[in-house]
């Protein structure tokens, strides 16, 4: 009975670790799909426009966005080599990373919110290897945790 109890504790610990790894995998799948969609979109746009967009009109990844009200006064100090910046705001702000921007642009096919149309699901599945397709299907239905149950 004691051995049973010890193994049960180990089993729970492994289950927790697997759930955490699945959620990290889910985030990486979203990134993979979003990045591939972004590259495809830009490539198509450039082919149609038969030229690249002006360098000062695009922002390359990785980046972050700080979002604040237009009334906010921002005071900025920059080191000569541009390796250090200090911003002072007199109002609140929000910070978002590039993945968040790509999700808002729809590049993750709506998987992040679990509402993915059948066409988008097809696109999303084509952007990941076969072994990961079950995850994409589960994410499209908004229930990643069940993937583990399914495989056992």
């Amino acid at each position, binding site marked *: 009975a004691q051995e049973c109890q010890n193994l049960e504790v180990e089993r729970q610990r492994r289950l927790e670790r697997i759930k955490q790894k699945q959620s990290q995998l889910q985030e990486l799948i979203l990134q993979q799909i979003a990045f591939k969609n972004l590259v495809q979109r830009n490539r198509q746009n450039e082919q149609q426009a038969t030229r690249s*967009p002006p360098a000062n009109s695009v922002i390359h990844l990785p980046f972050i966005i700080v979002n604040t009200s237009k009334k906010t006064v921002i005071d900025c100090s920059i080191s000569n080599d541009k390796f250090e910046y200090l911003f002072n705001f*007199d109002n609140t*702000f929000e910070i978002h990373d590039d993945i968040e921007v790509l999700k808002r642009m729809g590049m993750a096919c709506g998987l992040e919110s679990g509402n993915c149309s059948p066409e988008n699901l097809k696109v999303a599945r084509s952007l990941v290897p076969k072994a990961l397709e079950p995850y994409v299907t589960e994410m499209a239905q908004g229930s990643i945790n069940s993937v583990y149950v399914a495989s056992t």
Partner: protein
Amino acid sequence: KEVLERLKYIKTDIEDLKLKEKELDQQKMWLQQSIRSIMDRTYGGRFTYVTHEDICNCFARDTLLAIQAPSGTQLEVPVPEKGHCGQKKYQISLKSRSGPIHVLLINKE
């Protein structure tokens, strides 16, 4: 008898979990490699950009700072404290070790 049954089931399940965890680690490694190659300039890295318009369409508030920095750059946000005149100060500091940081102020108006 029940305890022995339970013991057998748990041992089998732990073996399953070991395999599952190994599979997850491999899939994670594969994805990280795949994302690195997408970001790599030779493959699609030239196309991993967003336009100012893309960004403006994503956010409601009007003033945006787009901060592009080398991987590993550290961003630090101190817990806001009250300044002398009682007003709260909100601060962001950025420190890069491997290259310059580029900041673009986008004012939607």
